[in-house]
Each structure stands twice: as structure tokens, then as C-alpha cells.
């Protein structure tokens, strides 16, 4: 292959993204040919495509990256946040075949192909994002072999994102003890004594478990269907309700489990886990117009007034107006006032809507894991709430 042929963007076959509202975006096929259907969402983070692709919270969704050049540093085996690519489809402006990184192993396209994912590049992703922000997220399908009309017909036959339970797809099938398979360990943080944390897996990211391990915990992930008794039988010092995909209103069984755990063990709810605990505390949840997905979301701690930049990935939110007297909203989103953190008034239970584990995204709120470990070690909620 000549140098020119190598460096020029490959001539890829055409593909199109068809939205349920009839809007069509033309582009070229990446990954494998075929079609892929899901709720079309956008993420504004400028780095972290591999972490995002493997984030189980994107299950059932077609992910659009708003940063136009994707694949710059390739992919490697250490960066996956779960065992596989979780998104249903991938939409980018430019997919580069010329990555450069000392850690890189494959191009992003090769990575998508190996996973059998269908995607689309050369899309005016800004036009798509503007459409989604004004119209709200919408079902869509990427296709490499159908006309727009055919694809739309097929799309109309597909179930809506909100009606499906994706948690059962991503949760572990049986309990397992987390072992970091990377050749380096996340550096130890703090000097907490050894502890055992159980993660109720609704679609956990590896970095949550790594950050717990780094704080002296052994971590066991258990299926979302685990009962209170089975879970407590593992003798956890603390329980994490993990992030995950889909509508929290579909998770009555998890809400029941969580309700049974409050008061019996220190708990941390992250993202979907936060929404589940929100329901435990009497609130309902609702769907946001286009969600929060990115690495630049400002969250204000209502006690200190301090603002943190957080990584977010959620389409639903907790309605803070109807919380029980037992719980209080502790953090809010600066842009739209959505509830970003809840704290129980008497029990060692707190939640965050954002991804304090980052990966991808800023590490500003990693200290929440220290705060959680303090409750795990003492079994008490902190005397003086910290932010």
C-alpha cells in the first residue's frame, strides 16, 4: 500500500442515520456494515471515547460524540470500562485511521469492527446535536444498506428505548470478586483498614471498583436481582448501587432491595443507583429532554457553595420536590437545577447523580469515595458533612 493510500481517509461506503422524526443525516459506514438502532444521544467530552463506548449506561443508545475528531490515540486493552462495547451505534464527524499514542494497540475503527459495532462517520454532528437539543433525544437507526424510507419503516417497528430493561443485559449473572486485570494497580489512597464492599451491579464501570480497591476494599459485584438477605449474607461493610442504563421506573425490584438495605449498611448510590435511592426516599424520576452527557457538568454543593466539574451520563433525573423528610438534596446541577446528590439525614447513605469515578472525565469528586470509605469504616454517617 502506498503512503498516500495509507494516510488518506479510506473510501468508505455510504451510510445514513435516520431519526424517528424523519430527519436523515448522511455519512459513511464505520465498524461493520448493517444496521443499528437505539436512542440517539450526544456526549460533549473531548476525550475518552473508549471509556464511553464501554460504559454500560449507554446500553441501548446510539452515541454521538460532539468533538469532531475521534480515534486520535487509538484503543488499548486497558481502557475498557466493562467487558464489551455497550453502545448500540456510534456517530462521529471524523474517525481517524492515524492514531498516535505510546499505549495504542488498534485503530478505533478496528476496535469497532472487532466488536461488530455499526457506526457512521462524516456526519454533521453539530447539526445532529442541535437537532437533539431542540427536539429532545429520539430513537434512530444507522443503516448501510437501506433507503431512508426503508430504515424509517423498520425503526417504527422497534420498541422504544424507555420501554426496555437494559439492566438485566449488563448486570453480572452471578456474584464475582473484582480483580483489576491491568498490569499496574491504581495507587492506594488513604489508610482505611481492609473492608468489603458489595456493588449491586446495574451496569457498573470498572473504575468504580478500582477506586474502592485502592481504598483498601475487596469488591464483590452481585446481580441486580440479588435479595437483601443474600446480599447481607456476604457481610458487606458497605454497598454501592452502581450506575446503569435505562429508566429507573422499570427497577421496582432494585428499589425494594435498596429499601431493605437502608439503615443496615452504609450505602453510596451513583447515577442510576442514585435514582433508585431517590425512589427509595419517596421521589419519582422523570426523563430529561436531552440528558446530561459530558465531562464539563457543573454541580454545586448547597452547603459550601463550591462548584465541582463532573462527568455525567444520564437521561433521567430525580424529582427533588417529593423527597421524604428523611433525605435531603445536597447537590444541584448549576445549569438546570436537577438534583445531583441526596443525603440521608440520619443513616450513612448518600448519592450522586454524576460519575464521581470519572473515566472518562474530571476527577474533582473522587473524594466522595474517601467519604464513603469513612462511613464504611465507622458505620456512621459523617458527623460534619463534607463536600
Amino acid at each position, binding site marked *: 500500500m502506498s*503512503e*498516500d*493510500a495509507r*494516510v*488518506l481517509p479510506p473510501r468508505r461506503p455510504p451510510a445514513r442515520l435516520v431519526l424517528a422524526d424523519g430527519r436523515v443525516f448522511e455519512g459513511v459506514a464505520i465498524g461493520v456494515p448493517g444496521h443499528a438502532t437505539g436512542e440517539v444521544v*450526544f456526549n460533549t*467530552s*473531548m*476525550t475518552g471515547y473508549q471509556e464511553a463506548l464501554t460504559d454500560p449506561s449507554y446500553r441501548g443508545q446510539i452515541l454521538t460524540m*460532539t*468533538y*469532531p*475528531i475521534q480515534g*486520535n*490515540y487509538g484503543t488499548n486493552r*486497558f*481502557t475498557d470500562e466493562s467487558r464489551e462495547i455497550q453502545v448500540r451505534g456510534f456517530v462521529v*464527524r*471524523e474517525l481517524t485511521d*492515524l492514531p*498516535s*499514542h*505510546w499505549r495504542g494497540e488498534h485503530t478505533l475503527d478496528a476496535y469497532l469492527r472487532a466488536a461488530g459495532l455499526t457506526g457512521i462517520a462524516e456526519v*454533521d*454532528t*453539530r*447539526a445532529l*446535536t442541535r437537532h437533539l*437539543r*431542540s427536539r429532545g433525544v429520539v430513537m434512530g437507526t444507522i443503516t448501510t444498506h437501506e433507503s431512508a424510507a426503508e430504515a424509517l419503516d423498520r425503526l417504527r417497528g422497534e420498541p422504544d428505548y424507555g420501554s426496555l430493561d437494559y439492566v438485566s443485559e449488563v448486570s453480572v449473572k452471578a456474584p464475582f470478586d473484582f480483580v483489576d486485570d*491491568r498490569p*499496574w494497580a491504581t495507587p492506594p489512597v488513604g489508610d482505611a483498614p481492609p473492608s468489603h464492599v458489595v456493588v449491586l451491579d446495574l451496569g457498573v464501570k470498572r473504575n468504580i471498583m478500582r477506586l474502592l480497591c485502592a481504598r483498601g476494599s475487596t469488591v464483590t459485584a452481585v446481580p441486580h436481582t440479588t435479595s437483601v438477605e443474600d446480599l447481607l449474607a456476604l457481610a458487606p461493610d458497605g454497598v454501592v448501587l452502581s450506575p446503569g442504563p435505562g429508566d429507573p421506573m422499570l427497577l421496582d425490584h432494585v428499589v425494594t432491595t435498596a429499601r431493605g438495605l437502608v439503615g443496615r449498611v452504609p450505602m453510596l448510590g451513583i447515577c442510576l443507583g442514585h435514582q433508585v435511592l431517590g425512589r427509595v426516599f419517596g421521589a419519582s424520576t422523570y426523563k430529561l429532554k436531552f440528558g446530561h452527557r*459530558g*465531562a*464539563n*457538568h*457543573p454541580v*454545586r454543593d448547597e*452547603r*459550601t*457553595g*463550591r*462548584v*465541582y*466539574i463532573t462527568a455525567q451520563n444520564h437521561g433521567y433525573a430525580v424529582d427533588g420536590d417529593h423527597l421524604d423528610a428523611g433525605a435531603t438534596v445536597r447537590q444541584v446541577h*448549576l*445549569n438546570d437545577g436537577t438534583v445531583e446528590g441526596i443525603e440521608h439525614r440520619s443513616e450513612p447513605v448518600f448519592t450522586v447523580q454524576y460519575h464521581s469515578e*470519572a*473515566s*472518562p*472525565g*474530571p*476527577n*474533582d469528586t*473522587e473524594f466522595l469515595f474517601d*467519604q464513603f470509605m469513612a462511613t464504611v469504616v465507622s458505620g456512621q454517617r459523617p458527623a*460534619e*458533612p*463534607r*463536600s
Partner: protein
Amino acid sequence: MPGAAVTTARPEKPRVVLVIGSGPIVIGQAAEFDYAGTQACKALREEGIRSILVNSNPATIMTDEDIADVVYIEPLTIEVIERIIQRERPDGLLPTLGGQTGLNLAYQLARAGILERYNVRLLGTSMRTIELAEDRELFRTLLQEIGEPVPDSDIVETIEEALAARDRIGLPLVIRPAYTLGGTGGGFARTDEEYDRLVRSGLAASPIHQILVERSLLGWKELEYEVMRDANDTCIVICNMENLDPMGVHTGDSIVVAPSQTLSDTEYHMLRNSALKIIRALGIEGGCNVQFALAPRPEVVAWESEGVPALPYYVIEVNPRVSRSSALASKATGYPIARVAAKIATGKRLDEIENSVTRRTSAAFEPALDYCVVKIPRWPFDKFAFGDRTLGTQMKATGEVMAIDRTFEAALGKAIRSLEFGGRSLQWEHPDWGAEPPLHATDERLWALITAVRRGMPLPEISRRSGVDPWFVERLARIVAMERRLLAEELTPTLLADAKRMGFGDSQIGTLADRLPEQVRALREEWGLKPVYKMVDTCAAEFDAATPYFYSTYESENEAPPHDQERMLVIGSGPIRIGQGIEFDYCSVQAARALRAAGVSAILANSNPETVSTDFDTSDRLYFEPLDEESVRDLLENEAGANGNAPASIVQFGGQTAVNLARALHSAALPIAGSSADSIDLAEDRGRFERLLSELAVPQPPGTAVKTLENAVTTANAIGYPVLVRPSYVLGGRAMEVVQDANELVSYFAAALAEKTGVVLIDKYLSGLECEVDAVVDGDQVLIPGIMEHIERAGVHSGDSMAVYPPQSLTQAQRDAIVDYTTRIGLALGVRGLMNVQFVISPPDDPDPEGPGVFVIEVNPRSSRTVPFISKVTGVPLVQLAVNVMLGRSLADQGYSGGLWPEGHLVAVKAPVFSMAKLVGVDTYLGPEMKSTGEVMGVDVTFDAAVRKALIAADLGVKPGTSFLLSLSNQTKSEALPLIRMLHEAGSRLYATEGTAALVQGLGIPVELVTKRLNEGHPNVVDVIREGTVGAVINTIEGGRPGPLRDGFHIRRTATEVRIPCFTSLDTARAAIQALAVPGSYQVLPLNVYRDGEAGA
């Protein structure tokens, strides 16, 4: 510390705040601080705080009297600022918006106890913070305490310590002087000789005689983070940027990309964490810039890559203030850093400040980009052919361009089109480059890299040799592959679309595909290939944004539909370069304001990220685009929309950049506001202009335009030597020279032909007093706000001359002639708007001794660099008047009439400022080619006081009794006699070179002989300068074509390097010595007090 509950008590909001500007434009400190200061003053006003501004630079928007509440145009010295504090009694001082100059002054004011004495609080940054960030040793200790890595280094204050440091750390080493800007005096030393030279120059450059000698991280990746913090400890990163040039090149001289392209999420956040930790440890309330070096590959550090998540990094530098990088970051993201920093300094928290771009979110967030930004520096080597083009730790660029697009290749292509570097495209190759172009860091490296790709050098090899990351090299390879397609394949709609999407300009495509640019444009029209415009909105389209700031790209959705309002386009002036500086940005901003004041929507186009003109609220719509024919026509067609109703373009304010577009716009049937393309051509076409002046009976030096050497020689013989030669259609006297004889004429012509300058103008060189005027012409009347008289005689470029308003030595008849000629020319040319006319007065060889002795030497049918100066000292709003004329309002309608505006009671002197210390190999003598980068103004009620202030502000102040080194050319010796006597009487010790010493002795004045033959014993001229024996130099040269190594070059360079005044014109020296010889002081008053005649004598 994250996790700790920190609820800081809110500091009291200040009532009156002093803002210190950054002074003249020099390399390392340019228009970005006018932008920062202007934003800060506006922010203070929004907060209801009274602002007091001081700056010595009149060519700034911040010194407009509607920006700050009180404006002082005064020298930036401790003494002056103390007097301002005394008079205005501010309770706060904003030290972080005036660059290093402002920060250093604030530091000195605090150190001297002045702030405490008058109860002035430092806002945003404490003394401790300034010390921590600026003192290398304290900074290093602090970083070690918080566990952030710094490269091995030693603080050095003597030569002996420097040698010890070298032996301990080992070469190569980086030398960084403390408390300097733009890396002045620093550098990168590979050898003992280089090390010795840099240690000496670094110690001299540092105001505290301290340098840092540091381990070299040559070849590592260089990254920058712009960070903000408020008093409540909320910290955010506005932007990260990656330098295409690896470590070793000053960031101001690096090609910079935003956001970073080659960093993984882990690496991005590792450095982000470090930056946040640092701003917290420093306790900055406001903005801060952190620079990092990151190891590019494991083998560089012999690292075990399997066992670690990330490679090591070092913290290289922190600026505890807004900076050039923060201006770039502001324009790259849409986030107004200086504005927010000013608000934080007054006690506001980030979440209490509105995001003025979205108007629905707060300033507490991190911008998300959905485009790629490329910045390329603009270097002055088109002016300084003999300058050393190697890039290192000392910045050499005078300005920069920025371009935005959705791919790196396209942004790079547009950035290169924005450079206006002699029409040089990415396809340019140096004729001397062989199979292996030089890949070390020079201003031409980008072209060398792509040439190497073109010549087939393996890409990994290019990356290894240059240190440029393979990611960037492969992108260049992609551009080369596209070039080959364009050369080989038929130009189809698909190929053209691919090329446009990759950022190829029509003219490049034309060259490669064998078409004229206009034909490529026609094909684009036929095939429907037009750019769309997308918005810079800080949030990657997540929210609806209110600020119309656009860039072009070849995609589907256009976000900038034409609107119906009456509107006009102001074409800006592009990158700051010698000859086209911040003055033109001043005019563009004023023009936009005047349009808006007249109810006309102002559209602005520019490519310069440093400027006020590209601020988000200067215009109603901003196009961040190259200012070439293609981009300007594209955006005008976009504005025209379907009905083809394009707005008129104003080309008078953007310097030669904008004026040069007049013809192309006219040919494309696009309307031009004000003077027509034909008027402009009439003024600029030498033949037509000469005929016009003859018809008007306006005297001019004999001369003509020639195209061949034969004609040149014939003409020169006819009019007699010396002659002034220059290419037609250029700005800033590029390649203008005084030629003494036929031999010099031949060599000039050879050089001119090599540069394909085409037409060369030859004029009789008349060496008299020089004057100039700016004028507004409405077709019936010509208003001249004032006459400016140059201190230096003709032969020194007007941009390098000191000038005084009002004129000090003109007769009434000469004034009348100037007004009369200007009026006649303005009306005959059909000017609508501004023009500038330059005159020579009473030349000794006057060809017409009976006349008033006034000759027109040049007319510019546009705004000139003196417009801000003359507007400020006379109070006549020139730009506003001109814009209203273009909108059809006569001068009379605006309450003005023709003729010379009554002279005020003040005297104002403009003095040029040079950046020569930074440009190794460049000769500093004053001549017909412009060399200065900026200017200052001294204003008072007497000429002597005004000159004194201008000299102090320009750093040319000479204290009484200073020892002088004299080295005079034979031509100037007799004229220098009174000056020598004056120096002697003022108590100066005199040192002189061989011939000059004899002259001084002849006057019976004691003098010490110093040889200028450097190989014949000591002390020689270089010794007495370097050792500080003399504090100033007067060195005149024979006229003619100077090369870099001719007589006196070492004298001038050495004086420049040790930063003592070096006068190469007796006129400047005389003004300086006279001003200092006359006892008396100067006043410190707001500008309007002088102008209104309220300042006592």
C-alpha cells in the same frame, strides 16, 4: 484541598479600582493585553466600580475614554503610578491584566510600601502569590511540597554559580531569567559557549539578576492549561492546548492546537488535576496558565510502560495572570477569561457570573469544543532578512493568527491563509531545500516538515528528527496525498469537495489542478460547494447560544443565515506584524462601534485572536476567518443570501490587509463603503497618482515607477542620487531603502526581483523635516484634526519616528500649504472616509526654493497608524466621523467642518518602541524600513515635558550625567558638535571610537578612546557597553544599504542586549538630551485634563 469544606468570607467589593495596562507592543506582550484590559474595565463598570486606567500606549481601545472612567496615558513607572494613586485614591489595584509589565509594577508598588500607604488592596492575586509564581526557587519549593514534579534546576545569580549548576545538572540546559516576559534573555544552551553567552544575557535581562538553569526536556510534548479559581475555591479549566512544536520552542513561537489532540483521557485529566492543584496552592483568585512537559514515549524516559498508567510529566511554568495564552484560549473557546477574572477579583464567585455566550448558564463550567483550533505565530523575518530564524526559549513572533474548523487539516490550511506572509501557501518550499529539508525549529519548520513528506522521507523519520508527534506528521502526509490527487486526477465535484473539506484554498487548488483561482470558484458555484458557518458557543451546541461568533466549514447546516437589518462588514487587519500593528485593530473596533451607534449592524471579520476586534461583544456578528479574497467573498456571499444583497465592506480600517482586498471585491461586484476601489487605486498606482498631483499643482519629489533595472538606472541618473526605492503596494516600508549610487541600485533591484515585487518606485530622496496628517473627507470638505511633526528627518520610516503634536517648527505658510494640499488631494481622489498624507518640509536641496517648501511624499487612502494618537490628543473622533461619512452623513451633518482643527493646549509626543533585544542578528539602526513593534505617548503642556515622558515610557530615558559612547559617521560629525558640548556641560563622561574621539578632543573636551576593532585589545566598544561603563550610545552610520556586519553593528547589538539607549539618529539623541538637560518635571493627569486645557503649565 478537595474534600475540605471551605467557605471563605467574601472580601469587600472595591469602590475604585486602578488597572495597569501593559504599555507598548513588544514581542512577548502584544494586543492580548488591550483585549484583557478592555474586558476588565467593562466588567468593572458592570459591577458598578469606578475604573482608573493607566497605560503609555495610545493605540489601545482600553485608553478610550468610554472604556475606563478615568484614563491616564502616562509612562508606566512607580513614580507615575504613585502620583495617580495619590490623585485618584483607588481602594483596589488589578495587577493581573497588564501582562508582565502590570504584574511587575504592582509587585514593585507593594514592595515599596506604596499600596499600604494609600490603603490600596491587591485584587485577585496577593503579593505572596506573585512571589510564589515568579520567584523560581519559591515556586519550585511549593511544587515539591504539593508533590508536583519540576525539572531539576538551579537558581543562579552569578557566573560562578552558573558554572556549578552546569557541572551538576549537565548540558544541554535551559536558561530562564526571572521576572521577564516572552522569555527575554533566556535560551537553550548545548555548548559551553552558548551557555556562557545566555547566562550573561539572562542575568542582564532579569530585573533581579537571577536566572534559572534547568534540565532540558527537549523533544517532550508541551501542553498548556488555562485555569480559573474563585474565592470560594471553585476551580475550572477553560481550555487545554497542545503545541505542535515539542519542548524547546517558546510557546509564543509554537504552533498551538486546541484542544489537545494526542492526549488520552487519563493524560488529559492527569495534567488537569495538576493544574488545579497548582492554582489552589498559589491561592490565585482569577486566571492562571500552567505549562507542562509530558514524555512522548516510554523510551524517552526508559520507563517500564506495562507497569504504569501514564508517562511522567513536569510542570514547566506558571503565569499567575491573564496571558497571551489566555487570550488565545478565550477566542478558542468563547469563554471571556479576562472578564471573568476581573469579576472574580471584585469578589464574585464563578457561579454568580453569567456565561455571556449562552446567557443561560454560569461561568462555572468548562467549555466543550466541537471544532479544532490552530494558532500559528507571525514572525517578522519578512522584514528582517538577516535575523536568526532559529526558534528557542526566547519568543520572536510579533503576532499570531488563529483558525477554526472541524478538522485539524482544514484549520491548519485556513491559519496559513491567514498569515499573510507574502502569499506563502502550504505548498511553499525554500529554494535551497534539498532532499532533506532542515527539521530543527525555525519559523519555516512547518513548511520544511511538509516538504520532507513530499520528498518521501519516511514519516517516522520526520517525527523522530523534528520531535513533532506522529499524529501531526501524518496529518501533513494526508495533505500531501491530497495535493497528489489534485495534481493527478481530474477535478470532479467529489475531489473538489474532498479538497475543500481538507481546507485547501481555491488558489492552492487552482495551482495544483491547473486552474485560475477564479475558475475554481466558478466550479464551486456550479457544483454547489459553499462553506457553511458554525458557531463558537462554549458548549458544543448543548445549549442555544446568544453570541454570533462564526467560523466556516464545508458541512451541511449553516447557522449564520443572512439577516435583513442594514449592515456593513468591517474587514480587520489580521496578525500583528511590524508595520501593521494594534492601531488598525483600534480603528476596526471603533468602526464597529460607530456603525452600531448609527443603528447599523456591524459585521466583523478578522483572523487575530489577540485583539479587541475579535471579542464577542465588539460586533453584532463576528467571522473568525482568513482575510483573503476567498474567505471574505465567501462570507459576503453568505451574508448576501439568496437575494444577492451583500453588505458593503469597509476596507479603510484594516491596514493594507483590508485595502488590498478592495480591487478583488470590486471585481466581484461586491460593494465597498467609502472611497471606491478606483479612488484607492488612484492613490496607490504610482503613475496615476503622479499625474493627479501634477494636475493639482501639488509638489512632490521627482520620481517614477519602474519595472526594469535599465529604467531604474536611467531614472536615478535623471533625478540624481540619493534616491528612495521601494516596491509598490506594501505597508510599513518593506524593503524600502535609500540608495546612494548605481551599484547599490543594482543590488537592490536584484533582491527585489528575487522577491517578485514587480513594480519598484524610485523617488528623489529629500532629507528634510517630515510631517504627516490624517484627514476625514466627505466629498465636499476635508477635516484635518492636527499636523504631526516628526523629530527625525526624512529617511527614518514614519513608523519609527518620534512625532509631536502640535508641530513645533512649521511656519504658518507651511501649515497652510499642508492643509491646502491635503484638501485638494482628498477631494480630487474622491476619498470618502480617511486618508493619511506625508510631507517633507524645506529639504536642503529644495528643487523649488521659491515655494513654501512642502512636498507630498506619500498618500494612503485609508486609516493610518497615527489615527488613535491624533484622535486621542485632539478629541476628534476620526473613525466615527469617517464611518458616518460612509453612511452618507456629511461632516457638516455631524457638526464638523473642513480645514485644520484648532490646536489644543497640550503637547503630545509619540515615540516608537522596538523589540530588538529578542531578534538576534537584526541591526537596530533607524532607516526607511520600519522596525518598531509598538509606540508610547508622552503628553504634557510643554514640549520638553512631553518628550521626557515619551522617552521614559519608551525606555529611552537618559539620566543627567550618564556616560555616553559616541561613534559617529563622517557625514554627521560636524552636526554633532553642539550635541557633544551639551553632553559635556550636562556632566556626562564621554567615550568615543577612533575618529570620533579626535573630533571630541578637538573641542577641548575630555574623552576616552575606545577601539571598535574587537580583535585589537581591550577595552573595546563591546567591553564598555557590556561592563556598564557607559549608559547610552550615540552611533550614526553612513547612508546606504546596511548589511548585518557592517561598521558599528556590534556596538548597536551589544547596547540592545544590555538594554541601554542606542541613538542612531542625531535628531532623537538631541531631543533626548535636550529634554533631560532642561530642569523641570512633568505632570501626571488624566488625558482629558490636558486636552481640555485645564492642566497648569
